[in-house]
């Protein structure tokens, strides 16, 4: 499994990419493997305020529906509408074209409390 070094991670299997003050969020390769084929994605609304640790949107696979939690607090800036017509992107390209939403963080320091790639890999190894 691949957990890119430049990303940060949550216990609930979201990845977080930081580009200056823009934060991009998706789900990890491990998560997409566990939930298997994704069939539907319910995206948040642009402009919504979200709170770190709270559910933001839903990813549904043939197994079940899963909440996606906000890794940081802030306001939704953009959503990846490509997932609406092609939810399988999450299985094919979890770290790239299958990002879920972009947010503008209210407290960018929250980034520092997220897990590094090595820490996340450790969590997976310990079994979640």
């Amino acid at each position, binding site marked *: 499994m691949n957990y890119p070094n430049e990303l940060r991670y949550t216990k609930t299997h979201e990845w977080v990419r930081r580009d200056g003050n823009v934060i991009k969020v998706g789900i990890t390769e491990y998560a997409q493997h566990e939930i298997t*084929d994704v*069939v*539907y994605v319910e995206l948040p609304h642009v402009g919504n305020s979200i709170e770190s640790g709270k559910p933001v949107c839903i990813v*549904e696979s*043939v*197994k*079940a*529906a899963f909440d996606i939690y906000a890794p940081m607090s802030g306001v939704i800036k953009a959503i990846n509408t490509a997932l609406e017509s092609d*939810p*399988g992107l999450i299985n094919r390209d979890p770290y790239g074209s299958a990002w879920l939403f972009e947010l503008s963080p209210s407290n960018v320091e929250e980034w520092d409390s997220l897990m590094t790639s090595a820490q996340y890999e450790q969590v997976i190894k310990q079994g979640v």
Partner: protein
Amino acid sequence: MNVESHINLEQDSKLLFEKSKPGKSGTPLPKRKFQNRNFGKLIPQSLQRASGARLPQLTESELIRHFINLSRKNFSVDTHFYPLGSCTMKYNPKINEDIAGLEGFSWIHPYQDISEVQGMLRILHELSTALSEITGMAEVSLQPAAGAHGELTGMMITRAYHLSRGDTKRTRVLVPDSSHGTNPASAGQCGFEVVQIPSNARGRVDLIALEAALDDRAACLMLTNPNTLGLFEDDILQICEAVHRKGALLYYDGANLNALVGNLRPGDMGFDIIHLNLHKTFSTPHGCGGPGAGPVGVSKTLIPFLPVPSIVKKDGQYGFDYNRPASIGKVKSFYGNVGVLIRAYVYIRMLGLDGLKRVSHDAVVNANYLRKKLSTIYNVPYNDFCMHEFVISTSNFDSKGLHAGDFGKRLLDYGIHAPTVHFPLIVKEALMIEPTETESKEMLDRFVDVMRQIHREANESPDILKNAPYTTPISRPDEVLAARNPVLSFRDIER
């Protein structure tokens, strides 16, 4: 000419619309009597259809074969063992059908005068009294049409109760991480924020996490007892004390009442609101054969908030009481799915209290018998004395590329319905098994033998499982395609 020799009519899955051929007919229609009348003039243009109704065209014999062969595809509790955990697929005694089919029940109409339906009302009144007694609740409404509908009703009552006290801060509903998906959905539908409470190492509600989540925003804890691992929440009295101390309500999801019925009452455990699934515990048709019924019971304090009307008996006459100003209102047209309610009434009257005690007793004995035997073959993560069901994990077959669903599909080839798979979510590769009280020791032993054989197949030749089932009309529907591009009617086929 090419003739396929093995097409079995039973295996044929075509729709009537696909079998239709223009000009075929099953019924000679009488000659039109009013050839010369122009009916188009009598009906406003806006109400007339632009083209003829598209009905399938077949002969009577084709039609009969279509439906008889469809009925022979049924994989039901009347034809097969059905250990579908969480669903309580118990045998439905046929006397339920006989009684519900009596003309006095099947030919009445909800708009009939109250004086003409006294018998029906009496049965509904006695049923709700019986359910109150069985569950230890002060009053039961029979209106909700299904379990999730009962949950929604319970959440509406929760909201009405807190608001009636001027307590507007209680916007959160707590659910354990093992809860049925309908619990958070019902709470969310009612406008509550859902907070998940983790399970402890014993598969029960983590009391410390619960205490932490119980603040002045908590409206209610929704709990299934026994929980979805089939384990009794043995801290229930402490849970109840903590919830009430913080001013919240305790909600009982009746999905697993079959483990307790007749022996233990949610009301005595301290629950404030309950819903029952009559199509589980009380032997009314379940699944697509519904309709369901999800009566809601409440403690004395909450009676004013129950849906209107309630059925009351006054001066020897039964009638509807609408005079409940604090009620959440009506939740179902007329008074619920009465055909189903009659069946549950018959079931309760046939068994009596002693019979109901035997139901939960035997359901628990059967589940533990299977758990003991199967845990020597399979991994049972919470291998503790269970109630009416238990959960196997097949995650040790991950390396062979096998999932819980593959085991379920293989069972179909042995004439056994697949257990619930991938639920509860806190067990990886879960197979949830609930035999119910209506299975014999011979059937349970056969199930164990089949499970042992499938275990051997999984180890020796996993491909057998990956391609199963082999004996059903359709083997492996493309679940991904079906979810992404659902075909919901014959019109979708033509698109």
